[in-house]
């Protein structure tokens, strides 16, 4: 192996640094019309009438459609992850009768420019009958709560119980029990490039081409083929080479993705819609909002005996899938040995924008609840929080470790590999834990509030069902690696060329990588859940190994030698390094791929050099990590100063260390946002109150504290590359680590930090209630 494990420069960078990126809105699509959506101003309302006559007459307007004008596409967008007990309310692309959140699309205007389309939006009259709205899970579950969907019995989407052991009994008999209630706030993906869709119909072939900023082009095509009742082959979905960040929301499927191409088909014109930031705030899926009521039973030494967690999950107005809450329930146990576990999930409908995965996907909430309780156990027993963790961690020789409950991929939750104790110790050592405790003592003596927070986690990643790769010798004599997976800045063009280079024994310069186009590879799932390196990675490796064999075989036939004697030098297969006995990739392509029209192939040559491999992991792989922070808190203002932060990270083998660091550090910034800043408030009527970056704070370079990052590499036995996922580890434990550190700082006051983000106002409140007693 020479390329795997190397911090190679990214191939993507030159075009991105010079303004030559090809983001969706940059693509040259001649004759394009521009679309704008009219969105519901109400959280819950019945649509009585839509009058678009004036809008249709407005300058530059080509067409206006309300939901009722497009009955043929008013079919439910299916939840990604279902459950037989799910009470599903149809999520329609553009509902004609009832809207369920502010921002839900009600009508589309297509015009010569976005300016003109927006002008016309204002001329559309919609007669609404407003209905009572639900804007939190607490409101959703309250007695006599208003109904988020008229005609429902209640606001519960599903109740799911996961059990192992006998939690009820053990909690009754445990020497000690403690309980806590924790809340994690909603938050968004906030990719810097908002969502966008463009579509062009070819009447001559009946095919529609769709450019979509999606993380999952094949998934989008699948959905569209069902809704449009069209063959998949007539729908081509392309995720452009450059997509400006994904982070989960772009892996979901939205009404706009159905409406825009359909309108393009109807009008026979190219139509483009680019979401603006205002729309992104109200119509792009969010995540996170959960309340955990957790109870733990433990012995005198702090060994956990049982954990019970009641979880309220905010599903938003519709269920886009149960992936997030199911990930939450299986993340609760984390890196600890817990003989008895009981989780009970109440996923609720509310009248807010639907929720689905955002970087971390259900894990930060579970880690928040569990890690807060680990600190509470330590406090109760007057033990060191690090020591309580040590006593409960699954040990390095216990893998594969069966947790006793199921993971969301449908398999029993089984950790494949890891070394949690070493990860924790490494993190504490780099933080200077003992010294930090001593410093904390001195600070306290001076009346200063310094705290240390630790959070350890396990992340299921590399999920199935499969991902694939196609490798072809092109007629230009290059090796083209095609992935179904679409990148959003992870560096796929570089990473998969590295993997292919090693398998082929060829230099990277002869290898090209293409991604995210359903017409180039038939099957795929998409980029989400930190899964691509562990699924597409092995597929690329295997397809490239097969390719090497084909190339060498063909060259050997042509050179009349034994394939074993051949190796590559530059783009030539040579025998014992003899340039006389060599063939270039182009020579091979000329014979085996291009051939001579109508002439029989030379004996022994197999035609068409293309190899394909699909990799289906047996189950999810588990990355792990530990975060630790030292903070100082000003109890008067609630300000937090993060003085030191260390991340220990284990995602198995690493293909390109620099890019993995980038993933973790980027995720960490997102985690700090969730921990301290990001909060999309809704009022009690379901009106979003933070719908611009003036009210919703994204962290900038001054807010993200400097951080020390180190890696361990426990290979996964589940794939031949030994890799796991790295996209979310920086995010998952950050809110827990910060909240633990802040509560630890305020321990002399016994102030309780139960909610994330931990904002100055929340800290002041906590201090006030503690002091008031």
């Amino acid at each position: 192996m020479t390329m795997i494990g190397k911090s190679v420069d990214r191939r993507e960078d030159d075009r991105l640094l010079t303004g030559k990126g090809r983001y969706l809105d940059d693509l040259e699509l001649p004759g394009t019309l521009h679309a704008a959506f009219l969105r519901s101003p109400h959280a819950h309302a019945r649509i009585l009438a839509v009058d678009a006559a004036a809008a249709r007459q407005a300058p530059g307007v080509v067409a206006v459609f309300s939901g009722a004008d497009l009955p043929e596409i008013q079919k439910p967008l299916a939840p990604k992850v279902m459950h037989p007990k799910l009470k599903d309310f149809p999520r329609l692309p553009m509902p004609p009768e009832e809207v369920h959140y502010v921002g839900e699309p009600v009508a589309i205007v297509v015009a010569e420019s976005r300016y003109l389309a927006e002008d016309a939006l204002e001329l559309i009259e919609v007669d609404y009958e407003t209905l009572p709205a639900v804007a939190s899970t607490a409101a959703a579950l309250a007695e006599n709560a208003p109904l988020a969907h008229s005609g429902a019995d209640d606001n519960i989407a599903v109740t799911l119980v996961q059990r192992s052991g006998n939690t009820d009994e053990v909690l009754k008999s445990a020497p000690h029990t403690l309980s806590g209630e924790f809340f994690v706030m909603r938050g968004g993906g906030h990719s810097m490039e908002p969502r966008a869709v463009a579509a062009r119909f070819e009447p001559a072939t009946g095919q529609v081409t769709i450019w979509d900023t999606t993380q999952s082009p094949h998934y989008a095509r699948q959905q569209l083929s069902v809704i449009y009742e069209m063959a998949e082959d007539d729908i081509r979905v392309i995720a452009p080479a450059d997509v400006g960040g994904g982070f989960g929301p772009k892996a979901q499927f939205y009404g706009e993705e159905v409406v825009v191409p359909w309108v393009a088909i109807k009008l026979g014109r190219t139509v483009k819609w680019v979401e603006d930031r205002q729309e992104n705030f109200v119509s792009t899926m969010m995540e996170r909002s959960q309340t955990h009521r957790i109870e733990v039973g433990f012995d005198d030494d702090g060994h956990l005996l049982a954990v019970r967690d009641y979880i309220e999950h905010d599903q938003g107005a519709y269920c886009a899938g149960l992936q997030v809450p199911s990930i939450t329930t299986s993340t609760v146990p984390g890196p600890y040995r817990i003989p008895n576990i009981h989780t009970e999930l109440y996923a609720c409908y509310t009248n807010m924008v639907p929720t689905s995965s955002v970087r971390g996907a259900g894990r930060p909430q579970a880690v928040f609840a569990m890690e807060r309780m680990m600190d509470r156990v330590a406090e109760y027993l007057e033990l060191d929080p690090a020591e309580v963790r040590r006593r409960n961690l699954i040990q390095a020789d216990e893998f594969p470790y069966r947790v006793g409950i199921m993971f969301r991929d449908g398999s029993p939750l089984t950790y494949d590999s890891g070394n949690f104790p070493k990860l924790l110790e490494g993190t504490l050592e780099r933080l200077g834990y003992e010294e930090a405790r001593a410093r904390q003592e001195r600070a306290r003596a001076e009346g200063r509030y310094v705290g240390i927070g630790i959070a350890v986690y396990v992340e299921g990643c590399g999920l199935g069902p499969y991902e694939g790769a196609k490798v072809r010798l092109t007629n230009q004599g290059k090796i083209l690696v095609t992935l179904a997976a679409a990148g959003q800045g992870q560096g796929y063009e570089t990473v998969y060329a590295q993997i292919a280079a090693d398998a082929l024994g060829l230099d990277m310069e002869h290898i090209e990588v293409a991604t995210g186009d359903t017409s180039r590879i038939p099957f795929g799932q998409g980029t989400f859940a930190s899964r691509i390196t562990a699924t597409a990675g092995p597929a690329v490796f295997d397809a490239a190994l097969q390719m090497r064999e084909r190339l060498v075989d063909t060259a050997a036939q042509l050179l009349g030698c034994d394939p074993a004697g051949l190796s590559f030098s530059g783009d030539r297969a040579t025998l014992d390094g003899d340039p006389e006995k060599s063939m270039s990739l182009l020579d091979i392509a000329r014979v085996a791929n291009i051939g001579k029209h109508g002439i029989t192939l030379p004996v022994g040559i197999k035609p068409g050099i293309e190899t394909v491999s699909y990799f289906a992991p047996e189950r999810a792989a588990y990355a792990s990590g530990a975060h630790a922070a030292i903070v100082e808190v000003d109890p008067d203002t609630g300000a937090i100063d993060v003085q030191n932060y260390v991340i220990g990270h284990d995602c198995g083998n690493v293909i390109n260390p620099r890019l993995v660091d980038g993933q973790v550090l980027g995720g960490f910034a997102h985690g700090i946002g969730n921990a301290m800043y990001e909060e999309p408030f809704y009022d009690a009527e379901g009106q979003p109150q933070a719908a611009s970056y003036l009210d919703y704070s994204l962290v900038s370079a001054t807010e993200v504290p400097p951080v020390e990052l180190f890696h361990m590499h426990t290979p996964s036995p589940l794939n031949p590359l030994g890799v796991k996922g790295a996209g979310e580890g920086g995010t998952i434990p950050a809110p827990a680590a910060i909240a633990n550190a802040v509560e630890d700082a305020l321990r002399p006051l016994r102030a309780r930090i139960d909610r994330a983000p931990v904002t100055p106002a929340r800290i002041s409140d906590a201090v006030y209630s503690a002091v008031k007693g």
Partner: protein
Amino acid sequence: MPEISVTVNGEPHEEAVDDRLTLADFLRERLRLTGTHLGCEHGVCGACTVIVDGAAVRSCLMLAAQADGAEVETVESLADDHGLNPLQEAFKKHHALQCGFCTPGFLMSVTAALREEPIEDADQARDVLSGNICRCTGYRGLVQAVLDAGAAK
């Protein structure tokens, strides 16, 4: 429709523009300089930053008509036939970009700042970067790139 004459990346343009056309849309749609990106259109993210008469400006908050008589520089002006400029090289070396959507704005903000004064320490670098938002990188590579390019000056 006002007629404007504006120099963009050294090239003069005479154009009739709608009163309300933003400078960002003018650059992107009229001149097809699509390196300037729109991330928020309300002046916070900085993705649309360009240099107008020497100052870093958010092109989403400026009208094309206001650029009449101005010299505008966009990300497309940074590299030349010999390749990336030192700041771009530093971005590449320090992995200061992932999806790259925010990158042109950062490059232009930092370019303007470095013309004003050298950037010598991490705090100063973070200050200069704080007018732009990047959701992907976590900023460490950006800070290193700015320090590197600042030192190279």
